[in-house]
């Protein structure tokens, strides 16, 4: 059924599927859009930085804003030692932003509305935090779970809570992006569905369908805001978590 709101998230193979060592592997629409995202990001930034004018044109200003937004974020949260992580945060931000924005076009597939994509990114980020923390501070990094200045009596409880909250980070980081994208696109589709089913009722329904139509337009604007905000939040939470790995004393 085409009208059900979940249909837009269907993954279907474009090429294949091929049978590789007993696993079915296919080039799906999700893979296609991930490729398009990378092409859009790289192509846009190459185009924006091709002129290198002293007084930037429109395209170059957008490129510079994009770059300096992430650069300021990394500078503010991570400080000067965060510079090696700037490319990572920039890549994550760009991928998530363009994935969210491309998903707003009709009939386009939203890569970030699949929990496997967002959870992979989140698990990678938190795994990196553990690796960098142990590489920088050795076993002293585990002091992260033992806050200073806490009475000895409740320290085990606090450590347990800190540990659980650390373990819930990859879950919440991945699910936040996934949940926002999934819920937003379902809501858009549901309101668009109201319009279609009201118009089908006849002339009275057609007049009544104006309200959900305006709602759908307003929600589209809101979804563009959410698409940007979630990419920003994903990048800034990556910085905040990396900060735990770089500076343990807090």
């Amino acid at each position, binding site marked *: 059924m085409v009208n059900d709101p979940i249909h837009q998230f269907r993954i279907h193979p474009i090429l294949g599927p091929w049978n590789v060592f007993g696993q079915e592997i296919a080039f799906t629409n999700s893979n296609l859009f991930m490729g398009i995202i990378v092409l859009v990001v790289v192509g846009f930034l190459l185009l924006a930085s091709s002129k290198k004018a002293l007084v930037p044109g429109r395209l170059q200003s957008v490129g510079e804003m994009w770059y300096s937004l992430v650069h300021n974020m990394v500078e503010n949260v991570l400080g000067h030692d965060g510079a090696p992580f700037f490319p990572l945060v920039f890549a994550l931000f760009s991928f998530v932003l363009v994935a969210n924005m491309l998903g707003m076009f009709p009939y386009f597939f939203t890569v970030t509305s699949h929990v496997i994509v967002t959870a992979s990114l989140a698990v990678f980020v938190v795994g990196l935090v553990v690796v960098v923390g142990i590489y920088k501070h050795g076993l002293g990094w585990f002091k992260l779970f033992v806050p200073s200045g806490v009475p000895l009596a409740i320290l085990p409880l606090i450590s347990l809570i800190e540990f659980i909250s650390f373990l819930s980070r990859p879950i919440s980081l991945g*699910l*936040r992006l996934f*949940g926002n994208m999934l819920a937003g696109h379902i809501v858009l589709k549901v309101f668009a569905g109201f319009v279609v089913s009201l118009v089908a009722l006849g002339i009275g329904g057609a007049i009544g369908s104006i309200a959900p139509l305006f709602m759908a337009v307003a929600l589209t604007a809101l979804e563009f805001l959410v698409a940007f905000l979630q990419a920003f939040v994903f990048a800034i939470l990556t910085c905040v978590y990396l900060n735990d790995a770089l500076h343990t004393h807090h």
Partner: protein
Amino acid sequence: MDANAAKLIGAGIACIGMGGAGIGVGLIFGNFLSGALRNPAAAGAQFTNALIGAALAEGLGIFSLVVALLLLFVK
């Protein structure tokens, strides 16, 4: 009550948790706004912190949505 009905009711109850997240996000932005109106000069630097707080509060609401989705779609 058959098992499927109980699942649907459970999914609906799970979504009540999103209300808590809504209260949390509203408190954060409301307090940010009242602080920003008192001292507009300091507001710009703290907007990022407001976003982080809102994202963390919202994440807990998303958990309840995911519980609802798991109840509905995981067989």
